[in-house]
């Protein structure tokens, strides 16, 4: 099975995803998720309120400081914000159409910049927060059964990615029009739903049966409450010999031994998630 995992990785790795976790160490990385959300909310509000050139300049500087303070790169910034460029062009075009060329440009640019700045804190959040950290946060906020669903869906992302790849490969050899080029023609979209989506949904139905049985077989939901075991905390208490040997030999930085992988994309996203549960043990009412 390993080989299939692998060719998924190749494809994803060569792509340049925006907003992926950057495994460097910075003061922003060390902030708690809650603190980052608070900073994000403040910066977002500032972007909304800044209408004058000077205030916009201040917000721009703050955001730039926040972004690069997190030791994120310029090329990263380009990846994160290029989606917004299309948006900006549309907005400026609309303003220009409404108010004429010289008059409409500044307000257009201003709004586009505001919208861009509104999103930057979110990008920083995603770039500096590990999935495991977010999962721990979610576990605190959400009711357990809902977070169980979220984590299970998350866990099955790579499995179904593999599944989709396998189905598509087999169906293509049977003549289904599923390649990238084929899909540019809407006439072929029918194939995608019949040859790809039906088998996929059938697999999902079967998988949900099996997962449900497995969860039930291990006592999921038999009691209204449950205990929490923190794998990371417990691991630290172990003798050295039992430590995980999976941590990458780190040239990435001081965090590397904890955070594992360098990106969180679908290909290898999961490797660093050793720390998914809560620190404390408690019983939910």
């Amino acid at each position, binding site marked *: 099975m390993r080989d299939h995992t692998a060719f998924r990785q190749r494809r994803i790795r060569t792509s340049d995803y925006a907003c992926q976790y950057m495994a460097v160490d910075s003061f922003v990385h060390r902030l708690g998720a809650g603190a980052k959300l608070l900073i994000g909310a403040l910066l977002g509000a500032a972007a909304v309120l800044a*209408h004058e050139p000077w205030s916009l300049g201040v917000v721009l500087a703050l955001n730039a400081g926040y972004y690069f303070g997190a030791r994120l790169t310029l090329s990263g910034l380009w990846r994160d914000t290029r989606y917004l460029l299309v948006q900006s062009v549309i907005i400026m075009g609309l303003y220009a159409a409404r108010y004429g060329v010289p008059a409409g440009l500044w307000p257009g640019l201003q709004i586009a910049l505001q919208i861009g700045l509104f999103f930057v804190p979110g990008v920083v959040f995603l770039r500096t927060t590990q999935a495991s950290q977010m999962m721990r946060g979610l576990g605190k906020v959400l009711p357990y059964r809902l977070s169980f669903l979220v984590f299970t869906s998350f866990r099955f*992302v790579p499995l*179904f990615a593999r599944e989709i790849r396998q189905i598509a490969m087999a169906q293509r050899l049977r003549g289904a029009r599923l390649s990238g080029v084929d899909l540019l023609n809407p006439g072929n979209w029918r194939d995608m739903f019949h040859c790809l*989506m039906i088998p996929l949904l059938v697999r*999902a139905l079967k998988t949900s049966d099996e997962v449900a049985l497995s969860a039930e077989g291990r006592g999921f939901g038999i009691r209204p409450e449950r205990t929490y075991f923190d794998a990371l905390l417990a691991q630290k208490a172990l003798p050295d010999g039992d430590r995980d040997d999976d941590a990458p030999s780190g040239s990435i930085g001081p965090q590397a031994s904890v955070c594992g992988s360098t990106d969180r994309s*679908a290909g290898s996203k999961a490797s660093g998630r050793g720390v998914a549960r809560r620190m404390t043990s408690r019983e939910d009412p």
Partner: protein
Amino acid sequence: MTRDIRFLGRRFTLREALLLGFCATFIVLTRAALRLHFSLPGHSMFFLTFFLLMARGCVPKIGAATLVGVISGLVCMLLGMAKLGPLIVANFILPAMVVDLAGFAYPRMVRSYIACLLVGVIASATKGVTGILLDYLMGMDPDVVVRHVFIATIASAIFGALGAFMVPPVIRRLQANDLIPSSER
């Protein structure tokens, strides 16, 4: 041991809830795949409406689509795919609520092309709601807001409608094979 494990106010069985979770997984996966290949605006609505309606078809209960919306928004965030930050949750949940409402009003909706098309258009048009809100917050000229939202929404609506249009044949086939319940509750 005859009791069923129930979810969310005893609404869903464990199996149904997991199936909805997998629909969310598919939304996330297709979103990731599409982002690799295309950069057309609004394309993500294509699979979003498809899987929301499929979720409704596979688990014909009120709230099914909304649950899928919530889970997919959160998983997107975990994977760092939510470039809009918290807004993504709204972007997923609003269309999901439209699907649920439609399912409430017309339970056999998922088998009908016209109903699906309509729901697809309305669901994807909700994207405009967040757009209007944001533009308005930014102090955009109301005149421009209308046009901007129109442009942003029309692409979504077209893709959403196309995605929804693919639902009835798939649902019918799954029902014919007795894989999903064909009687709506």
